[in-house]
């Protein structure tokens, strides 16, 4: 793997937001992979914000509770997790955290769009299969008023025609979703596709 795409690591702060066009697109899986990559592979101070009402991750990462800057979080494999976070808390964390931040959006809405607008790297996972295509157009409509630009679109399969269509329709850069077996046990081969998405 070449280090030429690692220039972004010189930044002290970078916010990465991940949303899904449809449910079960693998938003949490990709968010965890990015957070663990930043922390364990690049040794960056990393905060993971789970923007949702009910935490999916408490059972996995909730062993070691920590308190910082009036927030309660959990430390797991070096990453600080703030779970079941609301928009106000997320905004406070984004303002105060000195380091890299990964925001896992359970669902994109008008309420949390303000958080997505703050992200430096905005990632949308979607699929243009006939039964999911409508969701992509719907979320594109929602994003139009907020932050349509600079979206990295991740499609689930390696389909060139889909990537061309996405570029033509929405002017988004499309990437193939990296296949990562375990976001808590990354392999070096997982690094390159993650760098492509984050940079």
């Amino acid at each position, binding site marked *: *793997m070449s*280090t*030429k795409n*690692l220039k972004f690591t010189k930044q002290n702060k970078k916010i990465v937001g991940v949303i899904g066009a449809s449910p079960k697109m693998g938003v949490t899986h990709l968010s965890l992979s990015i957070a663990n990559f930043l922390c*364990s*592979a690049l*040794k960056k101070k990393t905060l993971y914000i789970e923007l949702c009402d009910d935490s999916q991750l408490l059972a996995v990462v909730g062993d070691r509770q920590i308190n910082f800057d009036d927030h309660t979080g959990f430390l797991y494999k070096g990453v600080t997790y703030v779970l079941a976070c609301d928009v106000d808390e997320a905004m406070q964390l984004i303002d105060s955290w000195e380091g890299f931040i990964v925001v896992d959006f359970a669902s994109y809405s008008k309420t949390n769009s303000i958080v997505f607008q703050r992200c430096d790297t905005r990632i949308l996972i979607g699929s243009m299969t006939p039964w999911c295509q409508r969701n992509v157009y719907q979320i594109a409509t929602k994003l139009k008023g907020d932050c349509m630009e600079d979206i990295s679109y991740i499609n689930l399969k390696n389909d060139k025609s889909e990537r061309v269509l996405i570029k033509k329709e929405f002017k988004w850069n499309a990437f193939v979703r990296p296949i990562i077996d375990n976001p808590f046990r990354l392999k070096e081969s997982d690094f390159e596709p993650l760098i492509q998405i984050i940079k």
Partner: protein
Amino acid sequence: MIPDGISDRYDIVQILQETAATAVLIVNYKKIGALRILKAIHRAHPNAHSILSEAHLLQGIKSSQIPTIISVEDTDEMYYLVEEYVEGQSLREYLLDTTITKETLLNIAISLCNVIEALHNADGGPILYRDMKPEHVILQNDTVRLIDFGIAVRKSEAAKARPLGTINWAAPEQLKAGPLDERCDVFGVGKILEYMLNNSFEKDDYRLRKLVSQATDEDIQNRIKSITILKNRLLELQGKTNKKYADKRDLCKKIAVVGTSHAVGATRIAINMCRFLNKKGTDAYYKDEKGNNVHNLMENFDGAKIKDGILYHDNFRGILNYGEAVETQKPPKGVYLIDCGVDMEAALDCDKIIVIAGGALWQKQCFPDWIGDKTVTLIGNMSGKLSMIKLAKSLKKKVYMYPHSTSIMGLSKEEERIIQKILQDEKLCY
């Protein structure tokens, strides 16, 4: 209480220990005239079954260094266990009038590790010996044997075991009835090592002292994690590394580079030595044990490559300290330049130590007690010739002067010359 009903087979030679309900005897087995140990316990004694459990424990151990159980028998009143009588001198007796060499010390310690390793790898799960003391280590010419398994226990049953052991020899968690694992025996072997060290010609050997302190750390989390690790560390000290390393022994060295204070250039010298060795065809890897220097280099080197946890850039190779969420990489074979910063303790784990001293008057230089050791090389950096001559005189040790360098990323001819001289003179890896 001497058991009845044994006189037809055994003659009592010596009573080693006797209470109202127990006895330990040296007996003569009449049929073949062999000495044996007979341990007897009354059926009504609360620990009556301990004899049976000792016999069960010893059954699954594949080692000639523990006594053979000959039989477990019973009479109307007593259970008794007959085992091999281990002749020889205990380590305590031996060290009463003998001062041992480092070689003997290492031989005994490694042999002791072997028997404990056999216990920890026993069929049916690890056995914790729990009773390591010099009286239980028997020396028979070149063989070391371990006796008295009275309080040994299976690891799976250790939580229920009574907090037994000898004060000053047993691990603190053992005496406090804390959770037990194999590390209680690491502590025991560490204490034996310390006892031998105090009765040896190598009392001040800093590597052995360091090993003792790591094996006998009161905090179980900081203690050496297994008897195999302790044994390998002893083998390294003995110069007999594992077979897998033997082929490339000269190429598998850990060279610590440590500064006497901050900002004396230890990192730069370690990186440059790594570059030099690779340039000359020796596989060398820079490793920063505690910091993230290699990660910082990764961000700043143009055109570097990463493969199997190693950062490659020109002649530089650095080991990346990945965090817990990245798959562990197999360490490559070669010379390791370990950047210890100013941590002198960390440097003690390496085969050779290079100490970097600065010459600035405002820098407080901290020289360790072992600076005079022949495995330690002293380099003066960023300092004048006069101050280095003074330093050499005060420490009575050769000081190499590292040249001033103008290049940020490269290796100047003068640097190459001095590194080559240091490596050759000090036999660091040629």
